[in-house]
């Protein structure tokens, strides 16, 4: 069952530098009980896309296209319906949990708050009981309900954020760099927790990260974004192991597999910097940093096309069946 669907979504910011396209035509689907990973670097539009789902973007952002949650277009919803959908239909876990929690309120109250807001019939005692259960589910002792955010470690705070996102039993969870600031071991704990939720409760999960290796181990499908577009899409492990777009290949190489002799003392990377969205190059927006670009890349912008089975790529070279890594 398709839970969330993006149909030709565009987001444009209007600011002092004119109109800046942040997302330029994205089509993606998330199934219930499945994990979609969105990979890309800062400024590629992945966070803008996540915020667009719950219409959390600033007023200067103009969104077009359709974002369907259970078949209902979020962009056409009235504010009353949208409030109901936030938390109960879909919820977001942001990065930087310290700033998303209220520093002067106890954890218990903050976890119970969304439940009380969305269900007027719920008593405070029942909400507290439920909050306790949620905290245990994310692996925190119930005594932590009495703590303030500063008394918790970064990993514990991130778990509290996940518990809050789960409070209203949403069907869809969006995790925006939810594990980026965490240490390897804590990240592993949180990832284990998130994957458990997906299989056991059948929620749909969108995981956004710059770390393709993390996505490959957790996600079913991965989409790689560059300059506001999806440039490659396919089964997560295949995208990581054998990229069909030079950008995904470089992104994957930035996180080497330990024990892989090909990566030993050969840090992978790309020359140059991500493009300024206000001044995108002509043709394929990745061409200035691309090692395998052909003449055509400077003139036309490649579409995201199926190349074989479930694999899609927006690269002329890959579409011709040629390798995307030089040498």
């Amino acid at each position: 069952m398709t839970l969330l669907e993006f149909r030709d979504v565009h987001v444009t910011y209007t600011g002092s530098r004119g109109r800046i396209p942040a997302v330029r035509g994205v089509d993606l689907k998330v199934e219930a009980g499945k994990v979609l990973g969105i990979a890309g670097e800062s400024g590629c539009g992945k966070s803008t896309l996540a915020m667009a789902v719950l219409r959390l973007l600033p007023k200067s952002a103009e969104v077009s296209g359709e974002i369907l949650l259970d078949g209902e277009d979020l962009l056409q919803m009235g504010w009353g319906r949208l409030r109901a959908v936030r938390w109960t239909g879909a919820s977001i876990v942001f990065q930087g949990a310290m700033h998303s929690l209220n520093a002067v309120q106890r954890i218990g109250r903050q976890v119970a708050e969304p439940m009380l807001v969305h269900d007027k019939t719920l008593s405070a005692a029942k909400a507290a009981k439920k909050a306790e259960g949620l905290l245990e589910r994310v692996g925190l002792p119930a005594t932590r309900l009495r703590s303030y955010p500063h008394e918790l470690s970064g990993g514990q705070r991130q778990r509290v954020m996940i518990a809050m996102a789960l409070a209203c039993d949403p069907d869809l969870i969006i995790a925006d760099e939810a594990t980026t600031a965490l240490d390897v071991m804590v990240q592993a704990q949180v990832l284990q927790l998130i994957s458990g939720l997906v299989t056991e409760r059948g929620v749909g999960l969108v995981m956004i990260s710059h770390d393709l290796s993390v996505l490959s181990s957790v996600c079913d499908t991965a989409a790689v974004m560059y300059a506001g577009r999806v440039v490659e899409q396919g089964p997560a492990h295949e995208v990581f192991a054998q990229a069909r777009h030079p950008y995904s290949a470089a992104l994957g190489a930035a996180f080497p597999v330990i024990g892989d002799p090909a990566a030993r003392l050969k840090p992978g990377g790309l020359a140059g910097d991500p493009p300024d969205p206000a001044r995108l190059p002509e043709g394929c927006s990745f061409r200035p940093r691309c090692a395998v670009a052909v003449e055509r890349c400077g003139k036309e912008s490649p579409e995201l096309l199926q190349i074989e089975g479930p694999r899609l790529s927006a690269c002329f070279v890959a579409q011709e069946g040629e390798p995307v890594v030089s040498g």
Partner: protein
Amino acid sequence: MDKVLTARDLRVEFGLPGGRTARAVDGVDLDVAPGEIVALAGESGCGKTTLARTLLGLERATGGEVAFGGTPLGRSTKALKAFRRHVQLVLQDPSGALNPRHTVYDAVAEGLRIHGITDDEPGRVADALARAGLRPPERFFLAYPHELSGGQRQRVVIAGALVLEPSILVADEPVASLDASVRGEILSLLLRLKEDAGLGALVITHDLGLAWSIADRIAIMYLGRIVEQGPVEQVLTDPQHPYTRALVSVLPDSPVAEPIVLAGELPDASKIPGGCRFRPRCQEVASGSALAVLGQCEGEDPVLGSGAHAVACHLVHARMAA
């Protein structure tokens, strides 16, 4: 051997409110020689940044000593200044490490001016920028940090360190705040500096993949102490210490087959457990496979043996002896 940066039984303690003491660095032995890259890896809070700051003389050791080329690091301003020509720092966040009101030229020339090196300043600055991969250097002289990309800023910080022609660089998470595709370029630069100029580097990181990409040796730190140390290939593909095994096991496509997700978190540096400090979280203790040495684990702090690949674990020591 003459330009080696060494730490011997280094200890750094901080007083905390309430009379407690945090033992951030708790008896560390470490060598960094020119021409080698040593990775210092561990979770946040394990004391790796304090260790780096102490190696640079930015933090005072409360025990043990730091030495460069066999000479212990003095505390006088003059001795520290001389030491700093040889050992330089590269910080994590290049945006914060550059004064927004200084041009690239001023930022790079700062070291020369501090040390009173006045001959051919523009030439030295240009050379350092070129070595850090900013070419042509003259084009960057008058740029302000906010006009550069993250990768370029980090190159400026590296150039600012290189201009003093140090033998050792201490880099604290040099790529953690950079975009993934830009990281490789900065790491390649460190590798090239090692190969071409014989520079030594201590790279502090929480990312074992980074160590695999550039380091020759790696030291794994847990709660203020090094628990395993050796050549990267050996430590990362055949980890011995239970903590290292757990760290490696949770990585994608890990050489350790079964993922070992440790419960709990790093304890506070003011509450270091007695005996082996890893015991309360140790998977070998939990599974009962360390029963034979459990008495030792509870009673004595394991020593990091000498040798190329050293491990501070009673169980490993017992297995090796058997």
